[in-house]
């Protein structure tokens, strides 16, 4: 906010950014995105429940237990009789910071076990989603007729199976090191700190796609409905998604350009990283192609969707810039990186989550969210978002490093940091408006009816909120837009597919 601010001490700052990163990725984004999938996928493929309801509950409680363990570290991090503590090794937990010598006490163990346990929860849900999507579709719903959301969740779950597990494996190794005296990441016994970095990012980069593919899924449902056109290029969208998931498995070391890998490795990871941009670009063009010539309705979900398109484009472009290795050497560990990934996670994923809330809230509760408060939330959040994260790019270019709790005056960072802080407050006000909207509309919102948006997928066929069994009788479908066929029997989609 201003130079020499020491509102938080360095130790507390380390704990804060560790808890912030861990919470946002593992205990906000993952549960909320898996939660949407859990709720929407059975509805959209015409099933009564997930394939394994007990596994579903088990996965949920595992994730909840993980969250509880993480926050318990505030109390028990240094033993129950010690002072309050929290993990302070960063969400990436690089070795040797996590070694017993540098992380005494239990807070690092709480971090490890919390993330490990919630990871098992995520894997359980991924298994469940795959089995649900492949084995529970209603009659007539071939793979080629599934809503895009199901396709994207299928891809994301497949990616989760092989993306989350490497972290679980590495964390088991870390526990062996910390409790059994192992040497996996112990450089003094010949172990390698770099190996942890590889294992972490073999998880860490696919994780970004595990989070963003559901955001793509929301976009692919919301943009067509509010453009009043079917999605443009359905098969290409599916192919691009699978392609993104595949390529994203081989880009991890672009997080590690500065550690001094050989130039072949650097080139390989630079090329694969740039290659991810191609299928992602295809998706953006397809969404634009869907909007092109449509009768666009600027309802709140669509506002967030349009902002998503702009912001995610910029996030992608700054990502491709950093794939150039020399450029990354300059900017790695600077605020430019912070700006880039917050553009992805807030500007992209969080905006998509907001769009999804406004779009599906009527289905979940039977009440509409207020459009007036929604528009206010949208504008506050867009303004706050850009005030916070746009200037960070410049702070990074001016050399401001990441993970510093305060800074010296006279480096040209003062005004930038002030603007960033103001933006953060505006975002917070926007979130308050959103929460107020969620609460007020639950009782006061207009009745939604079954199908408030005149949409085309199966969840809008049943009542709002849907009964526990979703559908009284299992529907049979003949096209990708079953409700269009139902509403327009004279000109059904099934005639053209």
């Amino acid at each position, binding site marked *: 906010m201003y130079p020499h601010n020491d509102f938080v001490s360095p130790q507390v700052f380390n704990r804060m950014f560790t808890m912030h990163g861990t919470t946002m990725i593992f205990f906000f984004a993952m549960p909320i995105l898996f939660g949407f999938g859990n709720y929407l996928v059975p509805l959209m493929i015409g099933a009564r429940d997930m*394939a*394994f309801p007990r*596994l579903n509950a088990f996965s949920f409680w595992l994730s909840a237990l993980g969250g509880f363990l993480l926050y318990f570290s505030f109390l028990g991090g240094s033993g129950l009789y010690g002072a309050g503590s929290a993990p302070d090794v960063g969400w990436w937990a690089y070795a040797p910071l996590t070694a017993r010598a540098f992380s005494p006490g239990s807070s690092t163990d709480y971090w490890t076990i919390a993330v490990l346990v919630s990871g098992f929860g995520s*894997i359980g849900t*991924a*298994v*469940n989603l*795959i*089995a*649900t999507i*492949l*084995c*529970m*579709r209603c*009659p*007539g719903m*071939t*793979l080629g007729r599934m809503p895009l959301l199901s396709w994207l969740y*299928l*891809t994301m*779950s*497949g*990616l989760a*199976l*092989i*993306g*989350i*597990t*490497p972290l*679980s*494996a*590495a964390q*088991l*190794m870390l526990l*062996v*090191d910390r409790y*059994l*005296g*192992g*040497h*996996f990441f112990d450089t003094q*016994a*010949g*172990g*390698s700190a770099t*190996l942890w970095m590889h*294992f972490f990012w*073999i998880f860490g980069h696919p994780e970004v796609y595990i989070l963003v593919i559901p955001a793509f899924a929301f976009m692919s449902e919301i943009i067509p409905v509010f453009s009043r056109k079917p999605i443009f290029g359905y098969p290409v969208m599916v192919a691009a998604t*699978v392609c993104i*998931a*595949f390529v994203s*498995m081989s880009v991890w070391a672009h997080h590690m350009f500065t550690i001094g890998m050989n130039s072949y490795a650097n080139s390989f990871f630079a090329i694969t990283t740039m290659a991810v941009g191609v299928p992602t670009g295809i998706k953006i063009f397809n969404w634009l192609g869907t909007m092109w010539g449509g009768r666009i309705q600027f309802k709140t979900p669509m506002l967030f969707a349009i902002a998503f398109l702009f912001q995610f484009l910029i996030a992608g472009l700054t990502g491709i810039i950093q794939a150039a290795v020399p450029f990354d050497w300059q900017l790695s560990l600077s605020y430019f990186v912070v700006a880039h990934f917050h553009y992805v996670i807030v500007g992209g994923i969080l905006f998509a989550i907001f769009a999804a809330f406004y779009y599906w809230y009527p289905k979940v509760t039977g009440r509409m969210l207020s459009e007036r408060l929604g528009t206010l939330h949208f504008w506050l959040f867009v303004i706050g978002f850009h005030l916070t994260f746009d200037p960070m790019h410049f702070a990074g270019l001016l050399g401001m490093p990441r993970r510093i709790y305060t800074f010296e005056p006279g480096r040209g960072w003062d005004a930038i940091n002030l603007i960033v802080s103001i933006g953060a407050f505006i975002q917070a006000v926007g979130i308050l408006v959103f929460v107020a909207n969620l609460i007020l509309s639950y009782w006061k919102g207009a009745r939604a009816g079954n199908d408030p948006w005149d949409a085309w997928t199966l969840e809008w066929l049943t009542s709002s909120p849907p009964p526990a069994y979703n559908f009284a009788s299992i529907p049979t479908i003949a096209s990708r837009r079953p409700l269009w066929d139902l509403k327009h029997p004279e000109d059904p989609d099934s005639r053209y597919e």
Partner: protein
Amino acid sequence: MSTFAPPIVEPTFDTAGVWSLPSRGKVGMASLIVAESAIFTIFVVAYLYYLGKSLSGPTPREVLEVPIFYTFCLLSSSLTIHYAGKSLERDKKRAFLGLWLLTIVLGGLFMFGTAREWYRLIYEHGLTIATNLFGTTYYSLVGLHAFHVTAGLIMLSIVLAFSLAGRVTPRHFGRIDVLALYWHFVDAVWVVVFTVVYVIGR
């Protein structure tokens, strides 16, 4: 790692016009196997990466003995569980029970072999998980596999208990088949672990 998702079976309206989809048990187990494979891959990579990098002894060549007999036991148990399933499908209860019991015995023998080897390594050669990098990676990789064998043996024993109580009928063939899939996976992992630890690693 090229396996991206479990094999996708395109469901079709078969000739009778019935909507048929793949079995969720098999798809679920296949997904779990994909996830488990990734975990084992990371442990195998760590083992290979640290091969010969221990700063002190003992080394694998000095202390490891190739467990041919116990490997033979474990791999045969894949055959016996397969034929146990076939017997159940054809409603041959006694054959099923016998082959199922044999599977458990073979799996148990394998675990006995692991226990003996660990005992020898710890008490004769003084190699523990904390001794050197070889100890850390060896016990973790073999231990992770042994953990999966143990989990499998527990599940097999539960089925044995149910079938002794007469509660396993040909109707349950689908579930037995899913369990067999897991057991085959555990055996297949041993082929990899065996190759890495006892062939490449010695």
